[in-house]
């Protein structure tokens, strides 16, 4: 668990992303800021629709119409990706220094090409390898992700593999060019629980061995607890709490985080009823002014109607809540 160097590997500041739909303008990301250091695993948790995927896709430059990055800054290794030079930089960096793993491995792979082709094309493009070198490296990568009979697998098609194996292939592709940052968008959500465990073990193992930074997006707090150094909690397009995993879970500050942790069933208190947070997340076309959680929050007062921002509360701990800051 090495967290070194002064400039963060990735820094996102006040990212604003809008989606233009028939029903109106959906503010998917309303001023998101976070950082990822070298060799660190950041977990981003939140419900569906909280803006987790959108924020990281913006980093990769994958926001397509009808979406648009309205404003904000994204810096990779200190260089901004938002200006003209930055756009060109993104093209070089994407897939090579930052790579991404998506949620559904079946649809993420092209059904008409072999696994081998889908791995080697990355090697051909970024690392200029010839056919033999690429084949060798592909086999190495498949071994790295614990796939047996790698030479045979190279000639197989995605539909001939199981879900877990396909996800391993996705991870292998992501590792192909030895990236410094891997973004994993809910990598285990579409898999069986037993396979989930295997993939998580693999990710833990790779994390230790390769010292690569990871952004892990998930809605499963257990996964965060297992793999991440720091965690950022997202709600309605905002990051509302950031901090080291142990500290945040032991002592959550934001009422939403508290609710999330309470809602996670534990094996110790089997007899208690399941707790949930009353209400539903707001409509992102017309988000409430100020704190988006205030309609559901038991500690809300009029002050919460004014817009909030992340404020530091102690050592490497941020929270976006008037009440939490006052309590601390």
């Amino acid at each position, binding site marked *: 668990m090495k967290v070194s160097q002064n400039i963060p590997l990735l820094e996102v500041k006040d990212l604003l992303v809008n989606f233009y739909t028939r029903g109106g303008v959906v503010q998917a990301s309303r001023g998101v800021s976070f950082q990822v250091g070298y060799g660190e695993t950041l977990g981003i948790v939140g419900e569906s629709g909280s803006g987790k995927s959108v924020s990281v896709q913006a980093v*990769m430059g994958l926001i397509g119409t009808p979406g648009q990055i309205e404003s904000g800054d994204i810096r990779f290794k200190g260089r901004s990706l938002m200006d003209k030079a930055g756009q060109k930089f993104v093209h070089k960096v994407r897939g090579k220094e930052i790579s991404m793993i*998506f949620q559904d491995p079946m649809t*993420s792979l092209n*059904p008409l090409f072999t696994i081998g082709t889908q791995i080697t*094309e990355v090697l051909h493009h970024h690392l200029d390898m010839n056919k033999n070198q690429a084949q060798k490296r592909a086999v190495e990568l498949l071994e790295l992700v614990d796939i047996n009979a790698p030479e045979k697998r190279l000639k197989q098609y995605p539909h001939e593999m199981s879900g877990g194996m396909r996800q391993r292939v996705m991870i292998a592709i992501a590792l192909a060019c030895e990236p410094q940052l891997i973004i994993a968008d809910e990598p285990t959500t579409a898999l069986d629980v037993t396979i989930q465990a295997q993939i998580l073990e693999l990710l833990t193992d790779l994390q230790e061995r390769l010292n690569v930074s990871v952004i892990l997006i998930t809605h499963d707090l257990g996964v965060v607890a297992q793999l991440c150094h720091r965690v950022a909690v997202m709600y309605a397009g905002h990051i509302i709490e950031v901090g080291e995993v142990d500290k945040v879970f032991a002592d959550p500050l934001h009422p939403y985080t508290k609710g999330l942790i309470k809602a996670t069933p534990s094996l110790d208190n089997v007899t208690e009823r399941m707790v949930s947070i009353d209400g539903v997340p707001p409509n992102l076309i017309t988000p409430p002014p100020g704190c988006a959680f205030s309609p559901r929050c038991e500690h809300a007062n009029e002050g919460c109607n004014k817009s909030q921002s992340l404020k530091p509360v102690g050592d490497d701990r941020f929270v976006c809540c008037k009440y939490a800051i006052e309590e601390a």
Partner: protein
Amino acid sequence: MGRFILRRLIHGLIVIMGVTIIVFVVTRMVGDPVKVMLPLESTLEQRAAFEKKLGFDRPIYIQFVDFMGDIARLDFGDSLWQHRPAMEIVFEKLPMTILLTVVGIGLACIIAIPMGIIAALRPGGIVDRITVFGSLLGLSVPQFWLGLLFIVLLAVQFRILPTSGSATPSHLIMPALTMALPTLARLVMLVRSSMIDELNQQYVKTSFAKGLPFIRVVGVHALRNAGLPVMTLVGWEVIRALAGYSVIVETVFAWPGIGLTAIQAIEREDLILVQAIVFTAAISVVLINIAMDFIYKLIDPRLKLT
């Protein structure tokens, strides 16, 4: 693999049998072949003698069995109109239709595929708007009228092309264009919508995330997936043309293919030639269908060769 070919061949055989039976029944039971074949003034005895000679006085099932035997040897008899073997006429005219089809549909593909791709890539752009509106128009215009318009405009008004016939390569231009247009309209809409669908798929996002260049993602990954339904359509268009739909273009331009010959044979009540043409058309359809199935299994690894 062997089983697959066998099954398709059997299916094809059923189709051909079905078609020939229908033609056989229609021509013999509904119409009166002898009346057609002999001049009007023939006496009853002449009729009876002719019937006996051609075997039309025998029970229908025996006629049918003989008929089957004949066509197995590709012997349909002599055309009543041209007094030579019917199949000989067919083999003469078939290449002209094939030429028209290949050039016409080839032209449609060459224009439609890039156009559809560009329309998909630049929504709201000029190619996109022309594609959507133009193909709607192209599908609404009757093919025979289009051909006539071409003739009036290009051959008469501006005198650049000959009006009909098939002597020179420039005779091919207008018929091929007329052949191409409806196919072009259908094809370009399909290419556009298939590409749009594929570009929205997750694997395209993954390919971009891998950092692959735009040309590769669109031209290799998306295009190959979009190509499957497009290929189906092209195959279908070819089949239609060879199964008789070339009749319209051939009639308008007096293009000597099997479509025109079929109409002429029908007009002259030359049942023998008609039977030969229908049989050939049915066989072409079956063969092309089998070839298409084959090509799919080669391209799409998800289909199993059973």
